[in-house]
């Protein structure tokens, strides 16, 4: 029982991170019908940016954890919002109208370049970097189940962020613009919406989300690594597709589902846990065979 609770807890934390990544993918697809595959590496870059921010803060003599945390979060989200917009401007918009495959590959390679840059130019970037524990680390145990305060805080923030995002999309003018563009570019233009601006803003928002996920990743594992982006990207993409591209709730569902599959894979096959990714990706293939346009299906629709 306590074990089960532990598994669920682990799965939920994992799922939250995947969901945050998947949200980015689904947002980008929504507005532009493209997959921005550098997204996973943007996450990593975000974590490293946060780390740099922390170093600066410490250098500037900031002692308290909270201001440090804020510096980290701001450094990460702002820089990545910028990077995201730049990527959108430099890699995605120019390829608008080119086959989807080109965008996929261009962003994948862009991500690779980003990854290599971290490895080569961030001091010691080729090895894992320690990420400071900036959250209170109190924890309670019942039997073999340990729940930690910092995890709960992250969980709360993450959920809050997601709710915030959906509010932005539902209530604000930006959200309206984004949804309009997602529905149909032409109509949006005729409604006098500045298409490019909306797209770039979307990329900024989505990338900021990824950066936040990166920071969360760092706080959760107390370690960041230049290479973690590719797999996280692929998983986030899988999650978004599983849920149904362009569908926010789908992205969430997909994220938690994938985490669930991985945990299940590790638990169901004790001592063969290395197969858990084989299991998870195998399930992805089967699920897509069963529901070809994702579990919830596309709301925004891939124009075939």
């Amino acid at each position: 029982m306590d074990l089960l609770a532990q598994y669920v807890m682990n799965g939920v934390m994992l799922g939250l991170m995947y969901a945050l990544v998947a949200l980015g993918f689904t947002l980008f697809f929504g507005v532009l019908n493209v997959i921005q595959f550098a997204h996973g590496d943007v996450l990593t870059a975000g974590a490293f940016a946060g780390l740099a921010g922390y170093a600066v803060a410490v250098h500037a003599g900031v002692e308290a954890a909270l201001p440090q945390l804020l510096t980290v979060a701001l450094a990460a989200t702002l820089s990545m919002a910028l990077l995201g917009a730049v990527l959108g401007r430099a890699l995605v918009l120019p390829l608008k109208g080119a086959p989807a495959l080109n965008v996929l590959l261009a962003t994948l390679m862009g991500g690779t370049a980003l990854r290599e840059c971290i490895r080569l130019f961030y001091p010691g970037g080729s090895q894992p970097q320690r990420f400071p524990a900036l959250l209170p680390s109190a924890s309670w145990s019942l039997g073999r189940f340990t729940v930690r305060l910092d995890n709960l805080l992250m969980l709360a923030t993450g959920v809050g962020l997601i709710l915030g995002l959906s509010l932005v999309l539902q209530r604000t003018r930006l959200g309206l613009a984004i949804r309009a563009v997602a529905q149909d570019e032409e109509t949006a233009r005729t409604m006098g919406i500045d298409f490019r601006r909306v797209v770039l803003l979307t990329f900024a928002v989505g990338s900021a989300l990824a950066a936040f996920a990166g920071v969360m990743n760092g706080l959760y594992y107390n370690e960041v690594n230049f290479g973690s982006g590719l797999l996280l990207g692929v998983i986030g993409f899988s999650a978004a597709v599983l849920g149904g591209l362009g569908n926010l709730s789908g992205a969430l569902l997909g994220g938690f589902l994938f985490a669930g599959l991985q945990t299940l894979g590790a638990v169901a096959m004790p001592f063969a846990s290395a197969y858990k990714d084989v299991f998870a990706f195998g399930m992805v293939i089967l699920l897509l065979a069963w529901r070809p346009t994702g579990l919830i299906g596309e709301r925004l629709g891939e124009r075939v």
Partner: protein
Amino acid sequence: MNPRVVALPLRLTLLVLLLALPAGAKEVVKLAFIGPLTGGNSAIGLGGRNSADLAVKLRNADPAARYQYELVVLDDECKPDTGVQVATKAAADRSIIAGVTHYCSVVAMATVDTFHRLALPTVVWGAVLPDITYSHSYKEIHRVNGTMVNQNETAARLMLKQGYRRWVVIHDTTDYGKGHNKYFTQFVTAGGGQILGTFGVTADQQDFTAELTQAKALNPEVIFFGGLTPIGVRIRAQMDKLGVNAQFQGTSGIVSDDFIKGLGPLAEGVVAFREGAPAEKLPGGKFFLEKYAEQKYSNPPEAYGPFAFAAASLLMDTIEKVGPDRKKVLAALGEVKGKDSIVGAITFDDHGQNTVAAITAYVVQDGKWLVWEDSEYAAGKRRLKGR
């Protein structure tokens, strides 16, 4: 400057002579360094590269040296086919006399035939799989570092001596991790220890909570980790998250400053083992570390840097002795007995394996890797987990 056409080598030698005669400059001799410079294992690869480079720099600075050495650095990406490609490149280039080759065992395995076929004397600087030297009788392949067999034998003995009996093994599914799992399990069970469970994890895995939760349920005294620094750091950190407080024991792959940097206080008391005498204890070793620091390389030497340095130095000593000729170098390498180096005396057996490869036990104390014997843990001032 490869001899691409029949005429080219002639022209080149002429050129070299012309350069050599008036200035009286030394003849240039090339050594190859092969290791992973890109991808997941690049940190160790770069550490090795820098160390070999350092060896060459020092030698070139030495007026007594008969030759001017040039290091040809090649990236094997830790992939067999790329490895074979660059190995062929190095071996086919007759101006390259010998090679300091490979960190990744799988690549080292792939290239032995190439080196044999093209007769390039090589000294492995980091790959630990026994078969690399023992699966064949090629004269071209030597190795300064010990194999994972020696390492795990010592590891098992020492930990059993501490009174540990119940292990959970976590290893990455690369050749490195799987090999360590195999040999450690073998020696521990032989010594009366018990492996409660074994978990394979992929080398790019981020989250280990599922495995660790199961491990926790098995309630082991020690978690043995067979793998490299990156996931070593993650597993140790996540053990703490899940409140798994068992002793953490690693392999040569985690004996790196980054392991400690990556974990901070959490690294305290972690035990690991590495082939070779501890660099910092031998006079040559101290010298190496100082010189390395002087060069201001962007990466630390990592666990295997000293071996790359030793291998390169060994090759250059040999060339100084017998001259830049592959056959002679090969013959001379066969003779190496008790040759001292910064990793201890080197003696090659008939498979080219360095037999006296000492195994050193390390423990992290106050943010530093200390040799077990002179740590407060050995002295009993501090205690490993559960002791």
